[in-house]
């Protein structure tokens, strides 16, 4: 079942479209914001709210990179591996984070604090290398600034 909060937010989005099914992606994002990731149960909850089949909802969910169908940590680090970031040394950024947290791309730290994922490109090309943690952008990264940035996130 969707929570009342989730339902309320989805109903607001439905107003933007002529058909209920059109809100599917917005619904997935709303539920993901509340629950952290989209579980099978979440798929079913959204499906019954929008009167779609679970297969249809999941077909849409699994297409989009930012809909997580596996559990993720409390904070999601998206390291940009776009071309400009690559030129400007994203690899050392990745190695620093990966080494410090002891996770590779696609993995979550055992304490659930961080999930490390790649992304391309964040639109920060003139201040490469860049990354995002949750909704925050960080750019002009150096070896040193990374420790500071990670420390902000519990």
């Amino acid at each position, binding site marked *: 079942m969707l929570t009342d909060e989730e339902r309320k937010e989805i109903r607001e989005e439905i107003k933007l479209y002529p058909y209920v099914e059109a809100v599917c992606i917005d619904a997935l994002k709303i539920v993901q914001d509340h629950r952290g990731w989209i579980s099978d149960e979440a798929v079913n909850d959204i499906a019954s709210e929008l009167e779609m089949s679970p297969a249809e909802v*999941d*077909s849409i969910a699994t297409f989009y990179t930012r809909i997580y169908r596996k559990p993720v940590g409390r904070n999601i680090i998206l390291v940009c591996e776009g071309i400009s970031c690559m030129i400007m040394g994203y690899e050392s950024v990745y190695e620093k984070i990966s080494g410090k947290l002891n996770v590779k791309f696609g993995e979550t730290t055992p304490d659930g604090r961080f999930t490390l994922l790649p992304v391309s490109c964040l639109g920060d090309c003139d201040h490469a290398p860049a990354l995002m943690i949750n909704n925050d952008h960080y750019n002009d990264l150096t070896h040193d600034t990374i420790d500071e940035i990670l420390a902000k996130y519990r």
Partner: protein
Amino acid sequence: MIKVKIHINGTEYEVEPGKNLLHTCLALGFDIPYFCFHPALGSVGACRQCAVKKFSGTDDKTGKIVMSCMEPVSMGLIISTDDPEIKVFRAAVIESLMQNHPHDCPVCDEGGECHLQDMTVMTGHNYRRFAFRKRTHNNQDLGPYIHHEMNRCIQCYRCVRFYKEYAGGTDLNVFGSSDRVYFGRQKEGALESEFSGNLIEVCPTGVFTDKTLREHYTRKWDLTSSPSVCTQCSVGCNILVGERYGLVRRILSRYNGAVNGYFLCDRGRFGYEFINHPERTRKVMARVRDKEFLEEIPDEDRRSVILSAVKGKKLAGIGSPVASLESNFALEKLVGKENFYHGIPDKTFTLIKTAVQILKEGPAHSPSLKEIEKSDALLILGEDPMESAPMLALSIRQASRNRSFEIAAGSGVPIWNDAVVRELAQKIKSPVFIAASDKTRLDDLAEEIYNVSADEIAGLGFEIASLIDEAAPKPKDSGKSPGGTAKKIAETLKNADNPVIITGLHYNNVKILYAAANISRALVRMGKKASLSIIFPECNSLGLGLMDGKPLEELIEPAGMRDVETLIILENDLYKRFDKERIDNLLNNCENVIVLDYLMNDTVKKAGILLPAGTFAESTGTIVSNEGRAQRYYRVLPANGQIMDSWRYISGIIDLTGKKNSSKWKYFDNLVASMTDAYPSLGRIREILPDSGFRIFNGKIARQTPRFSGRTAINSDVSVSEPGPPEDEDSPLNFSMEGFKGVPPSSLVPWYWSSGWNSVQAMNKYMDEPAGTPAGGNPGVLLFDNKNGRMAEYYKTE
């Protein structure tokens, strides 16, 4: 139809405009490779395999690569199908598809009828340069009918387009993206759609294969195969039945452009294992001296046992709505018209007779499934087509798209441009109204759903008729339908160009039939072209309804029973249709009970003599579909020990008892002649269906492919010397590889194959154009006149 001139490879052709180029080229006989295009599903342009070169004018020497499935045929089109650049490109597409395709051919079910194999050979790709790891997938258990092997997928998207968009299924979909797209269910489990079996034919590789075939796997080329007709409901879809070593292996769809088109429902496709069932009746058996069980009779005693039960005895025969016309007729001839009982509850039989009368009188047309698909307004009155006639329900689903085709045409978009049509029309559908007692699986299509009792459904129908033509009688509770439903339906039907009313015997209520007839008659009186489709309960209910027969209730009553000494029951488990007590009474009171059937059911267990009847796979017979289309099924298993066509057994009994008529039935065709003499309404069967004397260039039609193997070895465990192939005197088909090597008439097609086309796509070569008319016209012959114009009276409402 004004044709246009186009140039293909330098030659001018006159063709119909508006079709897509791939369709046109295939119709002209060109071998163009393709995957995602399907004649029933239209074009989407995804696979890029059907590339051709288009030239902007005669001076254009380089041309442009275009996808023929997305290219509309227009005046002056200049194309090349064999330009060198095209050949390279087509081979490149195959090479890409082969990148991740497993080296499965030798162990893949699809081998030998695989569209991917055919296209690989056609494009000439043979050396794979991809030297890296292939992507792999996990398979899902999709239920008892469909086997899933995702590694073989070439991502043509046909499966989801058929399952979701054509058939309205909701549990098969595409997941993921890029080169990891996955076609399956969200969670593994049995596929829910009634049409899931078509995935087997729609999938061009071995991703979705027939699980029932896997239980007793045989390569396509090794099958003996026959044209047949499905006996699971009254629609009469055309099928192909394949056997080897005496086991029926699988059923495929046989194209009938008027009835089932390319597809089948799961009941028809997978409902054949009863033929192979261990509890099949295979021997003549008798109950000797009040023993509890039937026992086999030694060969030499058989005649005498049967004769003693029949000669000089007062006979009564009970027919069946699932047995062929010929079997029912033969029984009637044996016992005499006054002693022939139709074998279904009288109430049902009255309904059938009423339906027959309505179809005969008209004036509404009895539509084929294809004609239903063309309807622009449908009323389902008192039926649940998904239950009683699934393929008809599928046609209704296609009909609901007609409004979207109109909208698309208004923007210059042709029907075959499938994704564009769907996008333009969004949720707009042609109107479908459903009046039923409960939910149906067509409810998602309906504009209005009216769930009430059967009598109220009839009342609604009468009201609609009276609103269309005020001369039609009003029901007693006129105007009771909620919110002006009747008025809305009446208006919609009246304003439609091609309205169809669908009704049937599902609710066992004759007033519903009357009401449906009245609606159709009212529409015709108002100058409309109306169609009325009546769904019958069983595959030959209509056929039986065209014959005479007395109600079994007469026989079951003590007065009727007294006289009968020997009761002969034809393919009918009476316990399924009547009270146990009354049937016990009947069977206990007859001195001899002879049963012809193919499974050990309760009636058979009460028989004194059991004659093993042939199923549709083991006999030749004619049945009449709900449309009024008489179609013939041909055996695929030759005479198998003691199993024989029911009519053959009965004809033998007639011979035994020395009746004078027997000499006329040496051959099946003689029996048919007798039958059509006795029942002129069946006369057309004789005129049009090819009979057993039919030959093409002196050749019969081979049931076995030219690559059939093991001919000499099959029998070697019995005898080393090769026996002659079994004779088939009932039809123009052979039980061997010998015969005419070209395209036979559509009603006699035993398998689909053409040079370079080993898969079901070979069907294209058997018709004038994809989704067109097969050679010789669509199989079957219509028994009703169906000429609009004759006026008929309205039925009373009470």
